[in-house]
């Protein structure tokens, strides 16, 4: 069957397989920033924004994105400038191996769009669905706080 959706601002008409997951569709379409960690919704490495909200793309049937708007980590840059969350992760040591990073960044972007001034507890809750084995989360939590401040124009 065929679906129509927007991927990182580009309108696309794509044929999909029955039962195909959004994760596989996006990787098939070259969005390799969407990572495969568990295919079970446990790790958050495949998170993307679907109609503005972070979802685990491994749990979403591609057909559910029909008519929708998808933003992956590749779609966050604007005119060659990193999104403040990306910049804060890069500046603050929030990246080690980088495999969880795209999903984690998407989760943080979603959180800050709903809550521009989260407390540390709210950040932890917001990132709870994204597993990272390298960083211990310390610098990632701090990066989200800094990104929030930057987005509120405080820096």
């Amino acid at each position, binding site marked *: 069957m065929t679906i129509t959706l927007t991927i990182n601002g580009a309108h696309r008409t794509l044929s999909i397989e029955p039962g195909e997951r959004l994760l596989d569709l996006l990787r098939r379409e070259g969005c390799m920033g969407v990572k495969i960690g*568990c295919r079970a919704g446990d790790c958050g490495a495949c998170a993307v924004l679907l109609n503005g909200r972070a979802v685990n793309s491994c749990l979403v049937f591609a057909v559910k994105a029909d008519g929708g708007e998808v933003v992956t980590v590749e779609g966050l840059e604007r005119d060659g400038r990193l999104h403040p969350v990306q910049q804060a992760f890069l500046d603050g040591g929030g990246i080690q*191996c*980088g495999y969880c990073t*795209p999903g984690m960044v998407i989760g943080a972007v979603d959180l800050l769009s709903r809550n521009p001034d989260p407390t540390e507890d709210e950040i932890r809750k917001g990132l*709870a669905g994204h*597993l990272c084995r*390298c960083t211990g989360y310390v610098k990632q939590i701090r990066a989200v706080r800094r990104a929030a401040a930057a987005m509120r124009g405080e820096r």
Partner: protein
Amino acid sequence: MTERPDFAIVGKSARKVDGRALVTGKPVFTADLCLPGTLHVKILGSPYAHARILDIDTSEAEAIPGVACVLTHENTPPTRHTTAGQGAPEPSPYDARMFEDKVRFVGDRVAAVAADSEEAADAALKAIRVEYEELRPVLSIDEALREGAPVVHDERDSTGIYDADRNLVADVDIDVGDVEAGFAGSDVVVETTCETQYAQHAPIETHVVYSYLDSAGRLVLRTSTQVPFHVRRIVARTLGIPIRDIRVIKPRVGGGFGTKQEVLLEDLAGLVTLRTGRPALIRLSRKEEFTSARTRHPMRVRIKLGADGKTGILRAIEMEAVSNTGAYGAHGLTVLANAGSKTLPLYNKAPNAHFYGQAVYTTLPVAGAYRGYGATQGYFPLETAMDELAERLGIDPIELRRRNHIRVGETSPIFEKLGEGREGVEQTLKSCELSRCLEVGAERIGWAEKRGKRLRDGSWVHGLGMSIMMQGSGIPRIDMAAATIKMNEDGSFNLLIGATDIGTGSDTILAQIAAEVLGVPLEEMIVTSSDTDLTPFDVGAYASSTTYVSGTAVLRAAEKVRDQIRAAAAPVLGCDASELRLVDRSVEAPSGERVSLARVCHRAMYESDQFQIAATASYVPTESPPPFLANFAEVAVDTDTGRVKVVRYVAAVDCGVAVNPALAEGQMEGAIVNGIGYALTEEMLLSSRGRVRNPSLFDYKIPGALDVPELEVILVESYEPTGPMGAKSIGEIGINGPVPTIANAIYDAVEIRLRRTPFTPERVLDAIRGASAA
């Protein structure tokens, strides 16, 4: 402390050189770039813990459309090898084959299918008919050692096994002084036995390899590995092809922690590509990662300490370890030996020491290298026993450690007696700020105010615990690293290193070291790491070796290049080369006159005395300076439910000079949080038939952002004169801390000694109830 020079680039928290690609989701990991026509390879795992394959029929599978090949023990090379990616000859037994007519754990390889699609491969796996003869499994250390136990490796062509008939992979026994006399002369003796569980690395990227043929028909393996050069050598052996016909490329790696020091899939992908001529992808599912990849060796370790009653100075230490290596002996000997060699030298005041250990085969998941590498299992009982000893002596636990720990200018006979599965290397410490770590950490956690107070908050009781430890910086006289630096005519440099960045940031810190020597900002260093065709040799990312060993190779290569640049600039500046220094992208004469690096290289390439400014340097360390760590934790124990919460964790670490403080802190933070998971929640549960019962990230609980305590890492810098820029390595040490530290804090809160990890609510509650019933 030796004086630390002023650095321009080293000591700064520079951004990771690969950070931008990672944060923007560029296709930089193994599975991100696949060619059209790629075959998908799937593996059929054994349903039994121990069985013989009587018959295997693949005809139906081969007939499925899209199936390109099916591999079994009947059509693959039988060469024995080890999957452990260690230096040659590996100190692990050659007890594995690509496929065999015997399987030794649930998930062991039975067959593999390569097909056009994952669906076709899955269908083909289901169509393979296997007739098994079930054998009696061996499901614990005790069963393995029992008289008349089934022999896990009864084949006769395996080599390097200590005593296959008794299921013994390895046996280690070393003595210093006379430990019995030491105990007899001790006023206080404590003895404790601790047991650790099956635990897994759980990198977010599972094992994955991509193989294809290059234009000359050579096999290219792009693989998520910690050991590219060992992969090349081991695959050459296993497949029986020359090393020159293999190229291993390490792209970005999505976490390793030791599990990717193992050559698990590369042989298989390579053989599929050689047989079919087509590219092949193998990616373990999360379930396969749990069942068929590697684990931390579960151990049972007994420790006995004897001390002087007045001073608390140790007179004797005895450690006896039994390690379960699972179905294959990868890292069996060396992890066992490190349980002693990385722990006992810490308390060098004891003139008498004895380490005895055995590693046993079972028909359970295979253990391997895991960050901490035996030290993690050894420090649990050692630091528990030190806590018990402190209580018996009536000495504060910090004070007892302070009196007993090794110091600058001192040595331990253990260094020489016990090394990487053989004798070790004598060394005298040139840097150790452990006493300061203890001081700073105690202050930050509020030891004096909070220890022993048992503060209550409803059913929750708070307690404080601590522990200390050391690790090493690489494997002396075994590890080898090399680096090549070549100069470009715009004043930039290519840094070509075999060192294997698996997310640690080693590309960045090695570039910082080179940039420091060459007087350029970091952006002038173009880093290429770990491609066996393009970069010089390096053993890879393990044993806390990269900063210290690879870092020194980079430093030496940079110094050679610096000297070439000076010589090339001398005629331009009209001075003697020895008077010149490199600074701000220039060569500067004593007069202050400068010529740019770009000018120097341009001249060398195009104008006069033409040559390529470039150099390669190697390094083999002759010692392994330990980093040191003092851990402090505040925990809260719920006496109603047995739940343990880590409220606060302070880690003060002597890392030498931190080449990149943010990355050094990141190593510590990540290791500590992994260790907290190991202490509290992580355990592979095994069924009575040896099957992993919780092979998912839902059922095997690694810490998430909500589980992390307030965590403070303090870099207590020293200057290690043998290290590059004064640095030591700290990739592993942090993971050893949480288990004993949390155990000791639980004791401070509720007076129970936990001797079995993880400290789940059930175990804690049982212990609390047992204690109150007694």
